């Protein structure tokens, strides 16, 4: 079984992102970049399926600028067999990214596509579901457990009230939630080996897809700041403040 894992290069989760001075966009000058955390979980799950003998090949794919090769190399160091960069200089919206990924998946025809539920930059939570629609595949989002059973996958999903298990016919799209697994760290020998693995670069222009933006970013601003609070000295003082000042308990 072949598994495709789309990943994304994003601002490292430790970075506090701020607007540019003119509020035209976020300020990404000299910030640390990394693989989106949910994508690491997706790579890990695919690699575990390969280690368990369920999968035969894991292909990491990203759509982005040339520097996204760095995150593909990380994916290769974590256990992906080869990688594909769909190269574009534009910052694409999720729908355009899903269209590019759909082209790659049509060419590779994997039995399973695993990707992160959400990228922590735009917080859109869209690409996997869109990809499933474009390919007419079934989808199992927010997965916390995956088991492959012949031509279907049984997936436990994190839903608002608890857990839901569904069966989805393969090929299918699965998006990862937090508790699916704990991703490994890349070892130094594997980082070295990853440098020799195949990384194919495909220009997006050759794909014949409409990637024109549908959304115009008008401005980016800081959220309204909270008024500074106070420190209380004791539980007694806290309870008194909540009762008499904030009036949120009685």
């Amino acid at each position: 079984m072949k598994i495709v894992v789309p990943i994304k290069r994003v601002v490292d989760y430790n970075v506090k992102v701020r607007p540019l001075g003119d509020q035209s966009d976020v300020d990404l000058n000299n910030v640390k970049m990394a693989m989106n955390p949910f994508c690491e979980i997706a790579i890990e799950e695919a690699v575990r399926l390969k280690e368990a003998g369920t999968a035969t090949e894991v292909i990491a794919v990203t759509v982005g600028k040339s520097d996204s090769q760095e995150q593909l190399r990380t994916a290769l160091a974590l256990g992906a067999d080869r990688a594909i960069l769909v190269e574009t200089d534009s910052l694409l919206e999720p729908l355009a990214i899903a269209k590019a990924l759909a082209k790659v998946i049509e060419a590779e025809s994997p039995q399973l596509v695993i990707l992160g539920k959400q990228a922590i930059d735009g917080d859109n939570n869209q690409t996997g579901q869109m990809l499933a629609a474009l390919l007419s595949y079934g989808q199992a989002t927010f997965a916390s457990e995956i088991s492959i059973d012949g031509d279907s996958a049984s997936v436990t999903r994190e839903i608002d009230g608890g857990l839901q298990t569904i069966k989805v016919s393969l090929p299918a799209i699965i998006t990862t939630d937090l508790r699916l697994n704990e991703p490994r760290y890349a070892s130094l020998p594997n980082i070295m080996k990853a440098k020799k693995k195949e990384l194919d670069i495909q220009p997006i222009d050759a794909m014949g897809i409409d990637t024109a933006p549908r959304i115009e970013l008008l401005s980016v601003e800081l959220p309204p700041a909270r008024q500074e609070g106070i420190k209380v000295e004791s539980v007694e003082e806290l309870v008194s403040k909540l009762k008499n000042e904030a009036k949120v308990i009685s």
Partner: protein
Amino acid sequence: MSTLVIAEHDNVNLKPATLNTVAAANVIGGAVHILVAGNACQSVADEAAAVDGVEKVILADDSAYENQLAESTANLIQSISANYSHILAPATTFGKNVLPRLSALLDVQQISEITEVVSDDTFKRPIYAGSCIATVKSSDSIKVITVRATAFDPVNASGGSASVESISADGVSDLSTFVNEEIAQSDRPELTAASIVISGGRGMQSGDNFHLLETIADKLGAAVGASRAAVDAGFVPNDYQVGQTGKIVAPDLYIAVGISGAIQHLAGMKDSKVIVAINKDEDAPIFQVADYGLVADLFNALPELAEQL
């Protein structure tokens, strides 16, 4: 201009987030219709028809929609989408699952988790875990939008008298099938609907210690939440998680216990009216957003708090 709101429900009752979504639709303007897709869900349609300001309820009552799986639900919405300028759903796990699929079927770039309607094509939404707020304008002919419920006050659940129109199932898919569901049973209020939330973080040290929070929750009629760190550490299930990748809450009172206050957690609770932080580390970032901070060992403070309530 007219807006279709996708109802969130469990085939028996309309879920409250639907009312916040109707509120967002009202700001956009124009007629508001509600789609109820479910199985044996007439009671939900009746509830939706009573929602203030709703003109029409569209009821698709069919066993195919029993569990509202994404494939069949998105196909159904697509079949009636031509009548609408806007299609809205709450940004719950249900809305987040179905709407992007619909959006791609319609060749539309969805706008996720709006927190403000600026005009009928311009919206505000948080990005980077709420570190920044983006104002975005859509050029798509149909706007497909998920709505952050906490950002809109709910409309009245009564006072309306909408007509109910039944439609047949359309585009039923067997790509996915429902197996089972484990819904946590609790006497406490639901996390996103509670007026008081008390959450624990890594500082709780174990899942067992969450009973310290539960005792207080029961005295206050509060819901219990957790930070991602506490979920990661296996103290509590993921449906407790408040934050960027979990639930967004904005109660009247939020009590953060043993939570350091990473940006990912703040993203899920910083719009709460009053925030209390209890942490033994006086430099913890949670104190920067807290109205009332108590620097104390939670294992001393919590029993004392329980006693005084």
